[in-house]
Structures are given as C-alpha cells and as structure tokens.
C-alpha cells in the first residue's frame, strides 16, 4: 500500500502539488491521468523520494520514504522517469543489469543473470542486448528503460509514460505484461498514461489530476465520464460503451 497524505510541493514559491492525499492498495494497476503540467510526474518523484518531501507524508508498506534507508526502499519500489535522458556509453544488457544493483551491489550472481535474461526476453530486447543505447530507436530505448525497472524486481513499480514512442503492438504488449505482473505476481503498478483508452482497458483504478490536485479517483467507469473528462481536458469527448468496455473518442 502506498499512502500519500497531505503532500504539498512548491518550486521557488510556485505551488506544484496542493495537499495531495491518496491511498493506493497493493496488487493493483493504477493509471494516473491528467493534462500536461498537472503534477503527475512530480507526485511520482515525491513518492519515489527523487524529490525531497516538503510537507505531508508518504509511506510504502508502512515505511516512510523520507526516513527509510534508500537501499532498503530500492528493493521495494522503483521508478522509471519520463525523461530517461542518459547519453553515456552503455549496452542494453548493462542498462537492464543495473536493475539488479540493489540486490547484488554490482556483482552479478547467476540468479541476477537469469533475471536479466528474463527481462530482456519479456521486452523483446534479446536481439538488441549487445547494442549501445545511443544506437537504438526511441521505442527500443524506452523498452530498455522499462525492462531495467522491471528487472529491479520491486513490489511497487512507478512508470512515468512508459508507452512513449511505442508502436501499437509494443504498447499493447507492455500493458498486457504489466497486467500480468499485477495479476500473477501481485505486484503494484502505478503508470502515467496519456492515452485514456489504455487506462480504460487495463487499469483497476484511475487517478485523475489537474493543477496539482486529485480531481477524481476510482474505477475506470466512474472516472471516465463526459463531465469529468471535460473538466480535466477542457473539451467534450464522446464516451462509448462497446461490449461492456469504455471507449473514449477524444478526437474529431
């Protein structure tokens, strides 16, 4: 369980998050949606202790993130950031292997190697394993970073727009994979999505943010309504139900 209570954040006097409180139960896939600048990335970085906590509290499985040793947290929770910008010289296998660092501190064991191979295979990276990151396409690189987070093997996985740059096939594959780790392995996934149809199709719950506040929180069918979506994005979308599923036509 991730418990966020009264978290506010400001940057040089500009408020970014206002008293955000949220509880995310274990073993669910939560989609975080909202317009650009809503504070989604900021909220995730506070939860993942990438930003110092200015006020309020965040606890993961009861452990406060600002007072728990970083190393211990790294075995429970990880984050893949929106801009993964890293330009150094690394192969895909080396990058994914970093996910094992919290467990083996850089001396890879046989189990680590197995996990790395597994992650490479799951994200369809085996053939690219020896390639330099700089030589990959945008989508390939994106998959490599998600594979690294996955390889860390944490119970909690925070992913900031992991579908960026992915084609339809890989986007679907990634969502199915995340669904599977939630259903079969009981992992908890919090994922920032811009395509609300993916949120509708795969998420257990949706958290909608705007202007640094949470404006809606619940099962997809409750959150994805015409009124809510207009409140969030500022224009009317058509919400359809096809075969008992919600589909949003958000373009003309």
């Amino acid at each position: 369980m991730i418990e966020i209570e009264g978290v506010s954040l400001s940057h040089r006097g500009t408020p970014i998050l206002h008293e955000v409180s949220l509880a995310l139960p274990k073993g669910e896939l939560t989609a975080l949606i909202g317009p650009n600048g809503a504070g989604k990335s900021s909220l995730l970085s506070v939860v993942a202790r990438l930003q110092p906590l200015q006020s309020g509290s965040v606890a993961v499985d009861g452990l406060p993130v600002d007072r728990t040793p970083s190393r211990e947290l790294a075995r429970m929770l990880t984050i893949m950031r929106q801009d993964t910008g890293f330009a150094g010289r690394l192969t895909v296998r080396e990058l994914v292997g970093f996910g094992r660092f919290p467990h083996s501190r850089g001396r890879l064991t046989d189990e680590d190697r197995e996990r790395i191979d597994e992650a490479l295979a799951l994200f369809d990276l085996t053939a690219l394993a020896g390639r330099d990151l700089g030589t990959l396409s945008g989508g390939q690189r994106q998959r490599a970073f998600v594979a690294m987070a996955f390889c860390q093997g944490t119970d909690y996985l925070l992913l900031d727009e992991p579908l960026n740059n992915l084609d339809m096939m890989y986007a679907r594959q990634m969502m199915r994979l995340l669904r599977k780790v939630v259903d079969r392995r009981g992992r908890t996934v919090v994922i920032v999505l811009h395509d609300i149809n993916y949120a509708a199709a795969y998420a257990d719950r949706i958290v909608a943010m705007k202007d640094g506040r949470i404006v809606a929180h619940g099962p997809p069918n409750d959150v994805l309504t015409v009124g809510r979506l207009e409140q969030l994005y500022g224009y009317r979308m058509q919400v359809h139900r096809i075969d008992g599923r919600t589909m949003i036509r958000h373009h003309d």
Partner: protein
Amino acid sequence: MNAAERRVWFAAGLALLCAATFMTLGLRGNFAFVLELRAVKLLALVQVAVAVAVSTVLLQTVTGNRILTPSIMGLDALYLLGQTVMVFLLGGLGFASVDPRMKFLCALLAMVGVAAAVFLPILRRQVPLFRMLLTGALLGILFRSLTSLVGRLIDPNDFAVLQGSGYANFSAVRGDLLALGLVLTAAGAAVAWRLRHVLDVVALGPAAAIALGIDWRRTVTGILTLVVTLVAVSTALVGPVVFLGLLVVALAERMTGTQRHAVLLPASALIAVAVLVGGQTVLQHGFGGAGTLGVIVEFVGGTLFLFLLATERGR
C-alpha cells in the same frame, strides 16, 4: 577475460615498460645512488599519475560528463589558496618551520570544507555542462585572485616561499611529502576501486541512482572528499595539473571502449603512469629538457579539451 580487460593489462604492460626504462636507461656512475634517486622520482610520478587519473574519473562521474577535470573546477587553486592563507597567518619563517606534512594536512582539511560548501549545492542535481564549466572557471578565478590578494598582504620575502608553486613541474618533485602522499594516494585509489560498482550507478545521474538505492548526498560528499584529497596530493607534489586527467581518461575510454569503472579506473591510472613516466624518460634522454613535460602534456590535453568541447563529445 574480455577485450576491455585485456586492454587494461596491455596498459599495465606499457606502464611497467616505461617505469623499467625510466629506471635503467643510461645508467652510469654510482649505480646504487642513481637508482635510489630515480626510484624516489618514479614513486612521485606514479603517485601524481594515479592521483590525477583517479580524481578526474571521479569528478567526471559525479558531474555526469567526460570533459571536466578537478583543476578546471578550480580545486587546485583552492589548495594554493590554503597554502597562501597559512603563510599569511604564520608568516614566512613560521610557515617554513612548520612540518610540511602538517601544512599539507591543514590545507587539505580547509579544502575539503570549502569544496563541500561550494560544490555540494551544485551537485545536488546534474547541471548542464556549460554551467558547470562556467562555475568552475569563476571559482578558479576567485580562488586565484584571493590567493594573490592574500599574497599581497604578505611580506614579499614571505611570498617568495610560495613562488614556484604555481606551475606543474615534473622534474622537481617535493620529496618531503612523498610518504604521506603515498599513503593518501594508495588509500584514495583503494576506496575508489571499492566504489567501482557504485560509481557505475552514480554515472547514471541522481534520479536513476536514487531509484537504485544510492544515498546521493552521502555518496557525492564521499566522492568529492576523495577528489579533493587526491588533487591536494598531486598539487602538493608537482603543482597544478590541468589537462593531464582529461587526456588520460579520454585515452582510456577510447582504448577500452567502456565507461565501466572497473575498467576505466585502472586503465586511466596506468595510462597516466605511462604518459608521465614515459614522457619524462624521453625528454630526459632525447631532448635534454626534462622540465618541459608539464608544458607538453598540458598543451596536448588542452587541445583535446577544446576538441571535445567543440564536438560536444563530453555531453
């Protein structure tokens, strides 16, 4: 053994060859005496090489680029400032009579303090390269002008004590700090080696490193202390060395094709030994002007710096 590791052994062979040549080339007269003289000098050069190479790798890793050296960031100027302030406080005679090791340790302590105060806020997150360069250049100017300001306040006779410590001179090394330097360099290199896997993670940048369980603040403070210590050693022994580190790290990376610290650290240190000891041997026997090594190394390294800056290979 993979290709990168083989190349580290190659660099080791090269360094060893240079050292052997340095010791034995043109040996004449009182063997024991000359050998001892050369051994002391070799020891100093190796120390400087290792200190410069390791400190440069470490600084480049925490700042997230491959173009900076501690000297570009003004760290050696900080050491000279410490020395000058001490002359000011003690007077020339007093300064001259204090044990040089004591002076060194005092300057080092002051350096660590100032460096932590100045650089830690900068290193909280990875700063764009140009801002880092600018900050470093400004800090260098600041420390240097403070040094000359304090220098003016000192009695001219006292100031003479400090003269000559402004430029790297590889042929006139300070013997009195050799033992202390050896201990610090060896310890520093050992700590860096133990941190090699952590350094690989630090190179990913603060966010990725924290997500992987690194305590960023503590780790960066530790690395910075290490850098400052090693810079103090090399500056105390031969004076400021600006571009040597840049040169050897770039060579090491080119040669081994990896940025993994398990390879980069030893490769850079060994190449630095080869460049310094080999260069000194060649100049001593080939061109007669042993004092010019510093100038040549800085010229080549400086050219490389400009090249890297122009091609933005340093990120």
